[in-house]
């Protein structure tokens, strides 16, 4: 019995921060793969390799290897992004902050920091398909990270209060 209790405690002891990091990692991985599919189908002119553009890395970054590394890079970068969300919105257990978060990420990257990406045309010159595809991707990416974190936060706090009550 005690052994079982110990184990159950161990299993549930994945910390909230650990979960947030995992959500970020997986969210980045999954949605950048979808981004690559969109790029492959020519919906968007830019693929996940966009994340590597600010750095001078050699020619490989423009090929499929660049896309692959871009996917991994986005996955890793998504961890701090997830923590950013956790700091701002975690307490609102609703889906809309996630959508808002994704949209503002898009604005920051494609508009504010646009000059940092050499391969990226300015917004006025980008074609409609690329803009729509990337906005949609950032929306679902934000929703994924945001909703997951808020829900997890809510679940954990709800359980804690239950524990206090009993």
């Amino acid at each position: 019995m005690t052994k079982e209790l110990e184990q159950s405690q161990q299993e549930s002891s994945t910390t909230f921060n650990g979960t947030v990091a995992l959500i970020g990692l997986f969210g980045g991985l999954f949605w950048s793969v979808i981004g690559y599919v969109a790029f492959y189908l020519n919906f968007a002119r830019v693929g996940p390799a966009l994340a590597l553009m600010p750095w001078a890395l050699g020619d490989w970054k423009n090929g499929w290897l660049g896309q692959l590394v871009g996917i991994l890079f986005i996955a890793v970068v998504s961890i701090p992004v997830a923590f950013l969300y956790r700091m701002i919105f975690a307490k609102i257990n609703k889906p809309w902050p996630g959508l808002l978060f994704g949209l503002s990420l898009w604005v920051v990257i494609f508009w504010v920091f646009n000059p940092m990406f050499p391969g990226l045309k300015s917004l006025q010159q980008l074609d409609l398909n690329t803009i729509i595809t990337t906005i949609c991707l950032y929306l679902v990416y934000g929703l994924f990270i945001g909703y997951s974190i808020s829900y997890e936060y809510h679940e954990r706090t709800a359980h804690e209060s239950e524990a206090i009550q009993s």
Partner: protein
Amino acid sequence: MSSKVKKIDENDVFSRDLRENEKRITERIGIGTSFDVGVRKLYILDKEVHFYFVNGLCDIQYVVELLKELMYLDANETKENRVKDQIENRLTHVQVEHVGNMGEALTHMLSGLVFILVEGESDALVVDVRSYPGRGPEEPDTERVVRGSRDGYTENIIENTALTRRRIRDEKLRHEIMKVGARSKTDICISYIDGVADPNLVNIIRKELEAIDIDGLTMADKVVEEFVVKQGNNPFPIVRYTERPDVAATHLLEGHVLVIVDASPSVIIFPTTFFHHVQHAEEFRQAPFVGTFLRWVRFVGMLFSLFILPLWLLMVMQPSLLPETLDFIGPNETTNIPVFAQIVIAELGIELLRMAAIHTPSPLATALGLVAALLIGEIAIEVGLLVPEVILYVAVGAIGMFATPSYELSLALKMLRLALIILVAIFKAPGFIIGTTIFFIFLALIKSLNVPYLWPFLPFYPKALLDIVIRQGVPMKRRRPSIVKPQDPIKQGPA
């Protein structure tokens, strides 16, 4: 309780005068007008005794047995103080009840029980001699497996609870029964394991069921579903149905709650997510590795069936979007009819065929298949109505749909695919992208009984998602899924 159903009229009691009772009963249930209700009168020890019954719902053999027993009583025993006690003593059955309320006794009678009135007594003896017309447990058509049990739920709620009980002999398994429907008085049973299922969930479901105030539930579980989960305009199924007792028992053990409605062979599983609809019992009858393979094939098939037609249409309309490696796709010859129209014709054709196949008597089914496959397909191409590629992709889509374990989900996906096709035809690539995004967000926002529809993908629960992507061995699954908020999260001891 639904006020009209359950409120028992306190003044509606039997009188001590048998004649008056008979008159009231005859008036209320129309003995003499309805041919299927009747009364058998006999004299036992100088007292008049009435048997009230419904034809067809009770086992006549058994009623005859009871009558015989009473006739022996009349012949062999002498009259003592209370004839009623003597009669009750001779009723050879395990379920005998005293009922003083006439309405209640009549409801019992109309459910197939008989009630016995004795001269000078103010309560009835109700004997359960029910025997409903129905079939035996057969393998459900929609959830066949290669290996595994072949029994399925039937239209009889008592048999259904028994089939569940046969798999879970737990003393904590609860079957709560209630009557819903002012006129139909349909039996509904909530099944759960006390101490595992979330009591809040049980309470919510019980409350929703009690709040149903309708004349009858002829469409049984579907009506109940619509009342409990408030579907609205959402085409996606938000509860799962199953006709397999083993699937139902598995879900009970996981902490789900079942609702069984009389006269329907499918039981409702609460709560369910999208991913409950893409699993099948067959996967759990094969080795985990094989099960995973089957599941992946099915996932890929479903994704294909959803996206391949809209994507292909898009590529035909805008060949510039085609990746170089996929250059060969797209009709080579010029088409007589716009591709969009061809797709719609073919899609509607397949849907029509499916409906026709359901309603066609089985001796004609082969003929139907022949007409469908050979004549329509072949000749449509020869005439120049359809290009072969349209038929290919529509067929792929249709097969993916048939491979979806949940019939409800496959219909919803089909409608979604049509919507995407129309969006692509009007708005091209932006239509496809925005449509898919909105569809995804829409699914993510559905919440039934407080459970997000896309759980465990969104909100992201790594362990539970892994369990869906990879069919894990049963010894590995130590915990119940957290989404049902089980009271006891541990399923089995440490491995």
